[in-house]
């Protein structure tokens, strides 16, 4: 995850607390989405950013996951996301994101 984004997530965490934050990602591939989820939940696996060794345990979802799609106005989703939903491998993304969330739950 981009170092600047790690910094922002950490600032929001400090300002609002873990129970007030859900991190939404729009990664193009499952692996990249999983990496972002891992970073904000378990710490930066590349040890490059401010979340290196910091486990925030923030819930993280991809914008194309059903849990998030349900929360969004259908028209807005159609206008902003539906094209990418068609392009992306949503099953692979969901699998990666679920795997990280399960890992966090077990941790």
């Amino acid at each position, binding site marked *: 995850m981009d170092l600047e984004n790690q910094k922002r997530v950490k600032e929001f965490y400090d300002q609002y607390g873990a129970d007030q934050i859900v991190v939404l990602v729009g990664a193009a591939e499952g692996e990249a989405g999983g990496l972002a989820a891992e970073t904000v939940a378990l710490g930066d696996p590349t040890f490059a950013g401010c979340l290196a060794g910091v486990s925030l345990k923030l819930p993280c979802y991809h914008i194309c996951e059903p849990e998030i799609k349900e929360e969004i106005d259908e028209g807005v989703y159609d206008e902003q996301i539906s094209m990418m939903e068609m*392009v992306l491998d949503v099953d692979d993304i969901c699998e990666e994101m679920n795997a990280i969330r399960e890992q966090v739950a077990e941790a």
Partner: protein
Amino acid sequence: MSDYAVLRGASYTLAHTPDMVIHDGATQVTERVVNPDGEYLKELPKHIRSFEDAVRYAPNQAYIGNLNNEELKAIEFPWYDKPTDITERTGKYGEIMPEDEYYGLMQICDTFDLVELEASFAADVKAKLAANGMFTDEQVAVLDKNANFTEESLAEVVADGGCGLYFNDKLVGAIKKAHDVDVNLSAHVMLENIASKATSVLSLLHLVRVTGIDPAEVDYVIDCAEEACGDMNQRGGGNFAKAAAEIAGFTNATGSDTRGFCAGPAHALLNAASLVKAGTFKNVVVTAGGCTAKLGMNGKSHVEKGLPILEDCLAGFSVLISEDNGTDPVIRTDIVGRHTVGTGSSPQAVISSLVTDPLDAAGLSITDVDKYAPEMQNPDITKPAGAGDVPEANFKMIAALGVKKGAIEKKELASFIVEHGMKGWAPTQGHIPSGVPFMGPCRDLMLDGSIKRAMIIGKGSLFLGRMTNLFDGVSFVIEANNGQSAGGSGVSEEEVKGLIANALKDFAAGLLAE
């Protein structure tokens, strides 16, 4: 008469600069600061390609025009381990220049005596540049000024804040700082700027070769690279365009620089086509040189995966936009997509603004465009670095938008991508891959009747400059010329006058008869 500006031709050049990868690429420069004894810098030299390997590399041959996209596509991916049989360094659109000659060209492009080359190296390079055939005797004679420079004197220049120029890991030249205090004129910045100027000049010279235009007929030059030249009082003062035009011998041209990160070339081409259509100038050249900072940008991924350093070339291109001649493809400056301040940043909003909005306004369907040219990055470079196949991702998005618009069925997605897309072949030099690598091939395909309509799409990440969080992009359509122009088979002014005269004669005869 269409009055649209036309695409008269394009040139594409590469300078193979493996030593610059090690000494001047931003990834390597950063690594030397933060991790000087790390594995990467130790491993890197083992992954450097020879000039011969760079010449035989399929995407490089595609860039200079010796391999078309169908031929590139026919080579099994990945390409780095499947060299072509082509050993020719010159192609239909340009050439691949070796590093030693390129240092000579940098000196030809340096008007402030900042570049110094070791005497025997310079003599050797002078002979090679003379044999190249692209340079005048006067230009080649610039290298005579190196007689007193030795490896020791160059080392002193480097010790005094200069930048070394290396060939086969040996110090063969140096670039002096252009000011004692001003960081904007430091040796590092001067190296970046002279390198950009030199690749632009090489492309301009090849543009003259490719199009046959008399350099004196060029009215205006627009540079759209991503460097900035100036001093501490005006850091981006400019003007790369005029500086390069001077060396290329465009004596009647002035020019200016247009910037927009990777979208720069598309903006510049729109400006050029509009200047010509408005009648302000007859011949406008859009040009850009390469970027030393991006050499070996993804080197860590390539080394880690055992690949050669594939980002070992500086790239340049030049495009000639002229008034309608009835033959060359027209730039439809009335079918233009814009990512505006209010567009938003979701991929869907971006692609809609650049692709479907302008087509809708022109009454065209997504399938009416034969070929789309978004960012044409070589996937051999981006895939191992985790950035995927960038052109393919763009074609997928365009196709998905086509499905949403009802222009194609969902089951036709894959075939749309094959039919309307292309394999990427451009080096990852920022502004270089952004739509423009297709200008040359596009002209050829339209002149031989293979395609009728294409769209060039430029996109830029403005947020990198920290002035705005916005994204950017512009697009435009190119169409085969239907010949209905002033210079073509259409009706000329004289013919119209003749027709009116005849009609008046008939009218008068009719009146007399009454």
